[in-house]
């Protein structure tokens, strides 16, 4: 008799807990139909620094091949050659890391200071929206920012080699993020936006990203 009582009681106790859940808002969503990450409050945002698809800003890449070296699965293939005489050479852009973990890609005057004081002023010119995660910065804009917001600044590096091939095989990539950590100019990044997550393709070839742009080097 007590066996029946115990059985019924513990089932009812579980039912009470599930019944309470009935009156709370739903925690799931219908993914392909509700993927608007901004309008619907129920759906989360992709956090800053998410490790999504790899992306390379080729004009800032100095072809140092450190990423290809550190990659545990060898999914990055780089081919480079020495520049011809009179070839056009340039320096990569600065990357200004802000304290709220966003970054601005642009050019600051002179070399970045070793220690950033709060009363310093930085003027970032020719801002590049590609790679910039700080909101509302149009292409080529000039941004003034004070030192108390800046975390660190990546120095400019000279481009020394012509890039013939820069292929990343995303079918092999294991999204460890080691390549983005060793990149000296921080041109190789992982997308922390919706397009960094939704990358399905019908053709396998489309997942081999080819970044090399021969028109850059003249």
């Amino acid at each position, binding site marked *: 008799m007590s*066996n029946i009582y*115990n*059985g019924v*009681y*513990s*089932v009812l*106790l*579980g039912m009470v*807990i*599930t019944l309470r859940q009935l009156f709370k808002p739903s*925690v799931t969503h219908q993914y392909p139909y509700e993927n608007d990450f901004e309008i619907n409050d129920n759906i*989360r945002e992709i*956090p*800053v*620094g*998410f*490790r999504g698809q790899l992306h390379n800003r080729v004009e800032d890449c100095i072809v140092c091949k450190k990423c290809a070296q*550190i990659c*545990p699965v060898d999914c990055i293939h780089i081919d480079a050659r020495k520049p011809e005489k009179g070839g056009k050479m340039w320096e990569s852009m600065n990357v200004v890391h802000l*304290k*709220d*973990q966003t970054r601005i890609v642009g050019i600051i005057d002179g070399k970045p200071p070793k220690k950033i004081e709060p009363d310093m002023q930085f003027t970032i010119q020719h801002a590049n929206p590609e790679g910039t995660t700080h909101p509302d910065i149009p292409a080529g804009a000039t941004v003034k920012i004070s030192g108390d917001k800046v975390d660190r600044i990546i120095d400019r590096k000279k481009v020394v080699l012509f890039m013939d091939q820069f292929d990343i095989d995303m079918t092999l990539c*294991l*999204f*460890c*993020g*080691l390549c983005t*950590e060793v990149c000296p100019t921080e041109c190789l990044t*992982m997308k*922390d936006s919706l397009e960094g997550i939704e990358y399905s393709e019908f053709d396998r070839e489309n997942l081999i990203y080819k970044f090399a742009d021969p028109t850059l080097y003249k």
Partner: protein
Amino acid sequence: MLAQSTASEERKFLELKPFSDEMVVSMGPQHPSTHGVLRLELRLDGEIVREAIPHIGYLHRCFEKHAENLSYQQIVPFTDRMDYIAAMNQNWGFCLAVEELMSADPKFAGVPERAEYLRVLAGELNRIASHLLAFGTYGMDIGAFTPFLYAFRDREKILLLFEKLCGARLTYNYIRVGGVSRDLPPGFLDDVREFIDYFEPKIDEYNALLTNNKIFLERTVGVAIMDEAMAISYGATGPNLRGAGRKWDLRKDEPYSIYDRFDFDIPVGEEIPEAGAVLGDCWNRYKVRMDEMKESVKIIRQVLDGGLPDGPIVAAMKAIRPPAGEVFSRSEAPRGELGFYIVSDGSVKPVRLKAKSPCFCALSALQELSRGLMIADIIAIIGSIDIVMGEVDR
């Protein structure tokens, strides 16, 4: 010649020969309750299991051999894929071993204080996530679907925290040799506090939902008793050993990192005569995990209350090049003692790497545990020893 080789392969696939009234059934590798790809070969007499032989290797990825061709930093993302449910603790176990090797090098200053706190924070959050998954899937194996949804709802909150912390949901690659990869994002500690405040009362809710449910008790209490001697002889560790009544936890008994600074208990299994619970039965192994989540919450609360020290998050070093030597280091992962044996010749790559997996030891006890029980009890055993096939096969 050809016929012979086929015969031997057949024997390899089916090891057992049934007696007249018995039959041999293959369970898995694709089976919802084998927690991965595990094939069990069952010799059945009606519904009674005479013999159950686990066949492993369906997820074998040559981790140990592969590691010989990778530098120490490159191995870390591969440890993620061993026990993918608790990848932080796998990263940590491997890094502890390399750091022990490095400690012979006078230039290596040791792991910074802040990194140790971050490791404890991440490791304990991951322990909760792992036990939540064990709790949820165990309920589902036994036939209760609701706990699974509840567990995944709360595990999702931890995954979102990790996503902010290190940018990945499952394969974190967060703990590195000499420290951690990223510092805290702004507002992270408040999010963690909000989570544990939300989560702590939920554990009692789970207990009301599943742990003390009559149907669940009938399925698990007194089933498949692994007593202390048997657990030790099989090398089973973690909740499986503690469920058998042995108070053994590396975080307390051989404190690594900064675990000696925190105040927490080690839950062990208990005998409850009125319910019929015996030391080392399925229910006790399960109950230890539920109690451990509370202790993890306690540790996280102490980290948050004490505050994190400032400073670097990774030890300054040029390259990870441990001096020649060998080391065996172990740490307390959610599923038991995770060991790494590394031989170094002073180069950037290990000469030999061996991982001692707690799940492998626990799974080896299955054959003895299941003898003479019903088929349905096998499901209860696999869920209660909480194996992850990625770690068994490596």
